[in-house]
């Protein structure tokens, strides 16, 4: 008997729908609720899975355990007051959340950002990307069963970057750093020197980390050919970030929109061939290397000057009526903010386009037909944070 009704449900047919898999008829189906407190779910998230022996027949993600209606709260407070709250969306990379929100408001109000602030944004954003990718690789390997070591390698490097954040902004994770029209505080020359030192040490870490993992036989056996996502479905399902590029679609918003000053830097967009878990894992390695290249250029060229637009209004900030959608390439994918202003001090509509939630749209498609042990890996390779999924 089906408890949740997962098994009997017939699905509509279409090329972009998950296929209907029939059980082989031997024995009974087993329904498992993976989560909400499963260690691999990075938080509180549930997958209702129907299994035929070990094979996944259906998978339904269940959301909302961490829902606090961030959007409603933001509509009740002023524009600037939401800035610290965006840190709590994707709490692994607060800088990029700040950036996306600041970018959307700057589009709405037509504000300029001084050049030094743009450079600082790029430096901090790329440091965030490195620490996110490193720790997401670490988490993935941890869930595969390599307990501890790779994750600790990643966290050792992440600590160095978080120390830089703490020195500059006062907080390791809840940074609250950006403002509409610039950044909150300037970086001292000593901080820039320390950052250069950390960045100079990063290639060595990536080499070491890669030596430890990429050629590993068990890792290859577990991840190659698992959770394949085709390029056409990835685009249709709105998948963004490293996951989209692992499927071979050349779409990086840093290149496409060239927001901020990204068109000044030379960097490549790594692409995958197969779109499986291994590709997603490798893409993150390659992106760390490209981020290091961007950081080296930005730290070399950073000019002097103010970090806040002197004309920017902090108090009594009321953008003219209208709307704007601003998006950036966050480490997890396209992070967008959609704002409608009615001329008041609060946004009339405040919407977060969460990459983590939308990347999970194809979770069922990737998992069907695989063993339940692979679900953990496929889920880990999507790289989500529940603070952003449920908002």
């Amino acid at each position, binding site marked *: 008997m089906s408890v949740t009704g997962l098994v009997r449900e017939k*699905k*509509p047919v*279409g090329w*972009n*729908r998950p296929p209907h898999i029939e059980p082989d008829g031997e024995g009974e189906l087993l329904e498992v609720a993976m989560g909400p407190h499963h260690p691999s779910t990075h938080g509180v998230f549930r997958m209702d899975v129907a299994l035929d022996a070990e094979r996944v027949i259906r998978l339904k993600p269940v*959301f*909302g355990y961490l*829902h606090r*209606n961030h*959007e*409603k709260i933001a509509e009740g407070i002023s524009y600037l007051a939401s800035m610290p709250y965006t840190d709590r969306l994707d709490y692994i990379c607060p800088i990029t959340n700040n950036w996306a929100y600041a970018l959307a408001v700057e*589009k*709405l*109000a*037509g504000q300029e950002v001084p050049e030094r602030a743009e450079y600082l944004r790029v430096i901090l954003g790329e440091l965030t990307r490195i620490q996110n990718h490193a720790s997401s690789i670490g988490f993935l390997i941890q869930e595969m069963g390599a307990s501890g070591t790779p994750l600790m390698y990643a966290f050792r490097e992440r600590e160095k970057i978080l120390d830089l954040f703490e020195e500059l902004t006062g907080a390791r994770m809840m940074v609250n750093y950006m403002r509409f029209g610039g950044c909150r505080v300037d970086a001292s020359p000593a901080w820039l020197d320390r950052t250069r030192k950390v960045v100079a040490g990063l290639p060595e870490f990536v080499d070491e980390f890669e030596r430890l993992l990429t050629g590993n036989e068990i890792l290859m056996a577990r991840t190659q050919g698992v959770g394949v996502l085709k390029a056409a*479905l990835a*685009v*249709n*399902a*709105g*998948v*963004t970030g490293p996951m989209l590029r692992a499927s071979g*679609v050349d*779409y990086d918003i840093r290149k*496409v929109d060239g927001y901020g000053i990204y068109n000044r830097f030379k960097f490549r967009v790594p692409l995958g061939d197969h779109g499986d878990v291994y590709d997603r894992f490798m893409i993150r390695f390659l992106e760390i290397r490209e981020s290091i290249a961007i950081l080296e250029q930005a730290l070399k060229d950073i000019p002097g000057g103010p970090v806040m637009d002197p004309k920017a209004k902090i108090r009594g900030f009321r*953008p*003219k*009526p*209208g*709307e*704007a*959608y601003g*998006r950036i390439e966050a480490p997890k994918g*396209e992070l*967008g903010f*959609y704002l*409608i*202003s009615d001329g008041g001090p609060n946004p*009339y*509509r405040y*919407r977060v*386009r969460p990459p983590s*939630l*939308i990347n*999970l*749209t*194809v979770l069922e498609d990737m998992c069907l037909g695989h063993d339940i042990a692979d679900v953990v890996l496929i889920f880990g390779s999507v790289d989500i944070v529940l603070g952003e999924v*449920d*908002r």
Partner: protein
Amino acid sequence: MKTVEEIKAAIEAAVPNAGVEIVANPSVSGQHSLRLRPSHALAVARFLRDDEELKLDFLSNVTGVDWPDKQVAEKVKVTRTVTKTVDGVEQAVEETVEETQKRVEPGHLEVVYHLYSAAKKHGPVILRMRTVNRTDQVELPSLTPLWRSAEFQEREVFDLYGVVFTGHPDLRRLLMWDAFKDHPMRRDYREPDDFEYEPTAHDEVLKRAQTHWAENPSWPVAGTAGAAPAGGREKSGAGQ
């Protein structure tokens, strides 16, 4: 990338009677949008996705906006007959007076789609659709059959705003639990008194509950037979 006017012309050439309107955006962002007629929305969206020049294959963002009933004050000239005493004789005189009349503009729910092209790397093209009202005619066609990325986002709009998407393959609440009754992102939403369950209702909860009872005389009053205790679990979320 074509301008909004050019896209509108292309749509009208491809889909007859599409009835696309341009919604101007006064902000500096300059992101103007196109309002679709719900009856033709699927055909227009299919054209936008498959057209060789536009190729908007990537639906990035789907979101709802609530526009509640609005009171509009208007100055209207009214002519009416007034009895006046002119030279000691009562006469009926026609008089034109300027009056402020209050009119209620009916509200609606709106859904906004942000489209990009991953193949051509341009965008955004913004589509909007409106429901007839906010209460019983809240159906809009779902674009999930065309873009899978709308699946969870339309579920979220259904959950938080109450827009019913016809043609959606799996329309359930996304973030709130299934037994929940209201739509929290609507602007007139009031959270239930017993939202945070406590075994005994304390003063603040009871005080808030009393104001709600005063507004809704049909609800059972606390202390009478048949009334649920103010902290009742099964009333959670269904209070409205």
